[in-house]
């Protein structure tokens, strides 16, 4: 037969077969390379996702909280009304420097300050206006706002609302508070009617040497009394039966304390402070205006 093979056909076929395997191998390798790049992107994305960024908004809330707390401390600590403003200015400078160092732009700005009067009793005694009389007297009149009204009770004589210590807050609404003792426990009852018989119990706590009845905060010792300080406009605070209990009290108000009462000592004090807080980073901007009045009733 004629020879149509032409040369060593074994070798050629082998090399052809080898070429195809090589080409296939290269093609699969390139495909796998593309797969590797793809999966690399996925791994990177999932890594970035688990690398939770420090939440800027949490820091903003913390900044606001710690600033408000510090300023409330200044207000309580300083009697000199000018000193609070000076301390806030110093705090603003420190805040600015510290935040700039961290690449942020936080600031505190004092916008407004309301001055008021702090009324306190220096000695433990009856809740009367004077040593000898004044069981029913007006502690504060024409007050737009009152905060931090606390009675530090050392002894309570009355045993029911009629004979207990009566505190009246008169404004557009009226609130009558009765403090009396039953079996070693001090009870606070309230009513919107001047008749003590209509009073309902708000809270009870055991009497001890340092029981504090926080009127604006609504607590008696550790017990919660609810919001017993009414949300009224201009109001006055009166004590009706001052000899029914003994102890001290204090409050800060924008009203006028009784000038003839010997029992109380009045000082000028800051009632509230309005500040503008700014917290700015590269991703978050938070600005808010807040009024700080520690011990104010939450209406």
């Amino acid at each position, binding site marked *: 037969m004629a020879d*149509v*093979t032409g040369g060593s*056909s074994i070798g050629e*076929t082998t090399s*052809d*077969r080898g070429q*195809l*395997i090589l*080409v*296939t191998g290269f*093609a*699969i390798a390139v*495909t*796998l390379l*593309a*797969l590797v790049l*793809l*999966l690399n*992107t*996925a791994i990177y*994305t*999932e890594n*970035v*996702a688990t690398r939770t960024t420090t*939440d*800027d*908004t*949490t820091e*903003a*809330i913390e900044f*606001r909280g710690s600033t408000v707390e510090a300023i409330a401390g200044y207000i309580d600590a300083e009697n000199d009304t000018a000193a609070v403003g000076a301390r806030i200015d110093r705090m603003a400078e420190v805040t600015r420097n510290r935040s700039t160092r961290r690449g942020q732009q936080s600031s505190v700005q004092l916008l407004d300050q309301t001055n008021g009067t702090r009324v306190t009793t220096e000695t433990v005694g009856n809740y009367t206006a004077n040593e000898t009389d004044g069981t029913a007297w007006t502690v504060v009149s024409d007050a737009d*706002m009152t905060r931090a009204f606390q009675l530090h009770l050392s002894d309570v004589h009355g045993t029911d609302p009629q004979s207990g210590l009566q505190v009246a807050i008169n404004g557009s609404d009226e609130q009558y508070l009765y403090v009396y003792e039953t079996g070693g426990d001090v009870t606070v009852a309230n009513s919107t009617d001047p008749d003590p018989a209509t009073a309902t119990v708000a809270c009870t706590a055991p009497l001890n040497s340092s029981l504090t009845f926080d009127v604006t905060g609504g607590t008696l010792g550790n017990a919660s009394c609810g919001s017993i300080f009414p949300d009224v406009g201009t109001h006055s605070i009166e004590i009706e039966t001052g000899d029914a209990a003994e102890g001290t009290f204090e409050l800060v108000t924008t009203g006028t304390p009784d000038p003839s009462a010997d029992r109380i000592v009045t000082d000028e004090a800051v009632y*509230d402070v*309005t500040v503008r807080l700014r917290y700015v980073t590269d*991703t*978050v*901007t*938070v*600005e*808010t*205006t*807040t*009024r700080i009045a520690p011990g104010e009733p939450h209406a």
Partner: protein
Amino acid sequence: MREDRSRRRSTGRDGRYDRAVSVNVGYTLNLVIMTVIFVGLITAAGTAIDSERRGVASSELDVAGNQLATALSSVDRVARVAAADTDDEQLPPDATPTVRKSVRLPDRIVGGQYRIRITEETIELAAVNDAVSVTVPYRTELPIEGTTGGGEVELRGGDVEIVYLDDGAGGDGSLEVRSA
């Protein structure tokens, strides 16, 4: 000698069995088989890559969606705190809070663009080129502007900015999401 030659002639050259075998057919058969194997392997690899690609796209969209959901929750929290501060009756009515957060999301997912759709309770991210779509739930107390009553907000995939809008009436405002 004669036996050698006759044996060689009957069995052919070099001891191969090549009667009725044409090299051309053999060669073509080799080519065809190799081509079939080649095409089969490449197709399998391609299919594997395609399914991997969908999986990666789905996972990346899920990550982006969760980042956006987290950002919405955190802005909601800060905005409510700031709004509570300025709701104070003693403050002037123009004391409004400002809350703004920018969220960095990838511009492209697996080389392709994607779209973000926000409804009242979910964020849906869908790749434009593939049929991949992921739904991520989110929760905020403040409503997202444009999603109340069954509406939805549609955005291009990429960096977004979340802004608090105060309604000025003493109540809570709403959040707006827009492309940055």
